């Protein structure tokens, strides 16, 4: 199972194994990782599962789709490496992925 590293805004690290095919958002909820709200349940209709992806990982991932970018415009403090964690599906290639949660989601 790929390991995902969740880092809180104040730099607390949580390393959890997330079953293949689940999203990074689902991995957070199932492991009670704080800082990800996911109000809409993963339908890309809110921006409350917003994370910052470590730069080296961000560049390896597919280009962010327009609809996700549009939603990220409404996130709390979006940056260049922002993603919605409900749109990142775990895979073996993403083993060791580092995401940081923002100060808050709403």
């Amino acid at each position, binding site marked *: 199972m790929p390991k995902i590293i969740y880092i809180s805004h104040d730099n607390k690290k949580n390393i959890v194994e997330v079953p293949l095919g689940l999203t990074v958002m689902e991995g957070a909820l199932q492991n009670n990782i704080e800082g990800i*709200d996911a*109000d*809409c*349940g993963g339908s890309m*209709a*809110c*921006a*409350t599962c917003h994370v910052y992806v470590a730069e080296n990982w961000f560049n390896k991932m597919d280009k962010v789709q*327009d609809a996700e*970018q*549009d939603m990220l*415009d*409404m996130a*709390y*403090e*979006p940056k*260049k490496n922002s993603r919605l964690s409900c749109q990142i599906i775990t895979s073996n290639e993403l083993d060791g992925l580092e995401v940081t949660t923002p100060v808050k989601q*709403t």
Partner: protein
Amino acid sequence: MIKTDAIIIGAGPTGLFAVHQLGIIGLQCEVIDNLDRAGGQCIELYPDKPIYDIPAISKCTGEELTNGLLKQIKPFKTNFYLSQRVEEIKQENNLWILKTNKGNLFSAPNIIIAGGVGSFEPRKLVLKESEKFEGSQIFYSVTNKALFKNKKISIFGGGDTALDWALELSKENEITLIHRRNDFRGAAHTLSEIKKKEKDGKIIIKTPYNLKSLAGDKTMTGIEIEHEEGKLEKIKTDYILGFFGLIMKLGPIADWGLNINNKTISVNTETFQTNKEGIFAIGDICTYPGKLKLILSGFHEGALAARACFKRAKPNETYRFEFTTASKKIHDRLGLKK
């Protein structure tokens, strides 16, 4: 004090259909919503996006669904109290007393919370110091256009609201439009209008920039923005308009002593009553084993909650189940001609 059989909090599809279900069994209700119009998430988040899972309707937009529901409840002449939020509730004997932030008072034996994921509020600027100027020089909606005449305005955001106001206000003001990335999401026509205005020097576009700091002590005199690559730039600004979309907050509901877990309220699935007698929760805001956040589930939940409201609203009467096809009483309530 407005007295009625049930207060519905939330005018989304679930709340609207609950009006219908109360109406056909002869109960009156009043509806309160924080938005300025009915429709909830359907109208605010996806007015133009088709929905494909409303029974018997292969495809309809959020706006069409809302309009259809409003038409369906027209016979009941329900009052809507919009742009206001329920701030407090208290219990007096068998009645609930509600007060909104606009000072409206209600009394009813039943409250139906159909609040979706909470009430919509504009997302604000992240900068802490912006609070100081909110309401005087920083706004998240435009209510008085005249205020901005011949002023320097910095507009933040990349969606239709930001673009539409940039166009409108550029007629009489100096506009800087600032967005965190190079792409705007807006109607094609609006985008070409913006480009034209930029060419004519009526609108200055700054992308990909974010707000870095505000200048000025008692009065804001300018802003500093930061390019994605770190370059800073100062802009003289009288007013900031921020259009970052809406966020949903549970708000005061969280303090009413209800069983809330992950922003949802636990209910009993026979009646959709919460842990408080006479307070029901339906739609996206309620939870129970197997809950699906679908509009059609909200309709079902409202139908059952309405029947449960009957017992509290008319304790001396017996509720009798009737079909809309055959019941003369229901036909009268719907105002059908014989």
